[in-house]
């Protein structure tokens, strides 16, 4: 049963709009490829328009008086929001009322996605206008401040417009601000000139993941999937450099050591209670998944505090740490974590979790191949043993699964016997 089939039934009059919506919600049917393609095209268009306007501003046209520039920037921003609202809320043709899986009312316009794209441009133009004013008045300020202001300015829009695109933009805006603030020497979370800052971004990913879990139950449950996906992607993306042999020879810089434990605690505070919202997993798998994430956090903490270093003799700061076992442990940790993630993905029927896990397992193997765990012979032998182990383990798991399935099938038959 496809979304399009239900739409056809509705169009021919066999079912009402309300029935159509109930069926779609019950079977969690998603819009078909054509609709998705339109959404993707609309959002790429929105990003291109916003980037184009930012570049036009950056080109700096002296001939245009500053009043005209400021007024144009403001009118464009407000105009895109007005157009977006009109299209989303039923300007022109309006389709039947819709509601989300949580029962919250959705915009009724026929061009909802296009309207959302226009709102997205409007939000990007707020940043462009901040930049424009900075350019016109030659304002010199801390770079993160502009992004913080942007983030504050658009913070209410995802909730007001009930827009996933705005929500993702908000998460990205916060990420950009965080990255800039970490590298700002006058900042209170300064960790610049130190590759360990990657661990902070990885932790931020876990915080997003936990926030996504928390969002699952509530009025904004539809914001949960993009939050979780972005969080997990960021977590793996920024963890991955730890596996590079020569890519993580950090300097012990003038950093604030308290940031990592604080962010870690925040991640746990969000992940632990959010765990109960993973209803598609059994209790055992929920805890396994949490333990995997927690284990990775513990490993990152050991890397943050330099537990795996080999030739750092103490002494003054700003010393180059030439040797570290971090990459070895990180390669193994990422491998095991990704296998667990794939298993969780299969349990949850989440192609995203499975595909992401497979991609990072592949990257991990490539990195291990080139960085070598010792000699070529030793690494080769380790690969062989690991490969054989995985295949045998797979056969064992499959046998166990079949046995369990057999037992499950046999149970009702036994129960029916007098």
């Amino acid at each position, binding site marked *: 049963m496809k979304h399009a089939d239900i739409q056809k039934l509705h169009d021919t009059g066999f079912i009402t709009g309300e029935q159509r919506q109930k069926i779609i919600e019950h079977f969690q049917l998603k819009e078909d490829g054509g609709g998705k393609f339109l959404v993707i095209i609309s959002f790429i268009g929105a990003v291109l328009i916003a980037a184009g306007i930012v570049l036009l501003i950056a080109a*700096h046209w002296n001939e245009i008086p500053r009043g005209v520039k400021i007024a144009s920037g*403001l009118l464009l921003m407000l105009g895109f929001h007005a157009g977006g609202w009109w299209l989303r809320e039923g300007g022109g043709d309006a389709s039947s009322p819709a509601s989300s899986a949580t029962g919250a009312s959705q915009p009724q316009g026929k061009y909802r996605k296009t309207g959302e794209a226009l709102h997205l441009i409007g939000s990007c133009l707020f940043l462009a206008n901040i930049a424009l004013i900075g350019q016109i*008045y030659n304002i010199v300020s801390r770079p993160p401040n502009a992004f913080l202001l942007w983030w504050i300015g658009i913070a209410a829009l995802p909730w007001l417009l009930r827009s996933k695109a705005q929500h993702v933009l908000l998460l990205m805006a916060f990420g950009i601000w965080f990255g800039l603030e970490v590298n700002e020497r006058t900042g209170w979370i300064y960790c610049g000139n130190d590759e360990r800052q990657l661990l902070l971004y990885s932790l931020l990913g876990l915080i997003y993941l936990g926030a996504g879990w928390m969002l699952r139950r509530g009025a904004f449950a539809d914001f949960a999937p993009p939050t979780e996906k972005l969080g997990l992607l960021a977590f793996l993306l920024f963890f991955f450099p730890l596996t590079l042999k020569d890519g993580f020879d950090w300097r012990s810089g003038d950093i604030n050591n308290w940031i990592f434990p604080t962010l870690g605690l925040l991640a746990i505070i969000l992940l632990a209670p959010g765990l109960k919202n993973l209803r598609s997993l059994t209790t055992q798998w929920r805890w396994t998944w949490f333990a995997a994430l927690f284990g990775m956090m513990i490993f990152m903490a050991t890397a943050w505090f330099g537990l795996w270093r080999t030739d750092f003799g103490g002494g003054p700061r700003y010393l180059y740490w030439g040797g570290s076992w971090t990459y070895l442990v990180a390669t193994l940790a990422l491998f095991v974590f990704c296998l667990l993630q794939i298993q969780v993905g299969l349990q949850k029927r989440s192609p995203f979790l499975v595909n992401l896990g497979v991609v990072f397992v592949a990257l991990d193997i490539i990195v291990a191949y080139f960085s070598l765990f010792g000699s070529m012979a030793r690494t080769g032998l380790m690969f062989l043993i690991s490969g054989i182990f995985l295949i045998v383990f797979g056969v064992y798991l499959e046998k166990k699964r079949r046995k369990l399935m057999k037992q499950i099938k046999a149970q009702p038959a036994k129960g029916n016997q007098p």
Partner: protein
Amino acid sequence: MKLKLLILVLALQSAWLLGTVAVQERALATGRVILLETARVDPRDLLRGDYLILNYKISDVPTNLFSPPVKKDLPYDTTIYVALASVTNGFYAVVKAGTNQFTLAADEVLLKGRSAWPRWNAATNSIHVEYGLERFYVAEGTGNPTGKLTAQVVVPASGRGRLKEVFVDGKPYAEMMKDAVR
């Protein structure tokens, strides 16, 4: 209700933008205009485009002008006040400096800055100070002027200077670079 809230958010965004414009315009209109000698380098900002980094003669403040005296290990990002006075050809130079605000003579202008990285210049025994006047945004591809650069700065009572115009050999920057491109 939602529309009203959206209008409120957009009004707040617009108010901030217009408020910033108003503060800048007021400072430019009411502050005292001074001339400073400067030199440039030209990088690019991804959001705001090409700009010149201006290094002023007043950016390096000799330690002997500080009262009370300061050490070379003055903390980074410390607020520094300098008194500027017109000395040669109408250009302003530092005559007094301090980490606390002080009273000015009638012909002096107070400019506020912060100790920048690197703070201390051993060769000149001076502290490097940034005033928030170090960037001048220019049209794309025109960040390579040849000639003497002069900056026109407006200094309001708060001491936070605003860069109003940069001149190349006495001509406004945009005009000069337009001629150079032709």
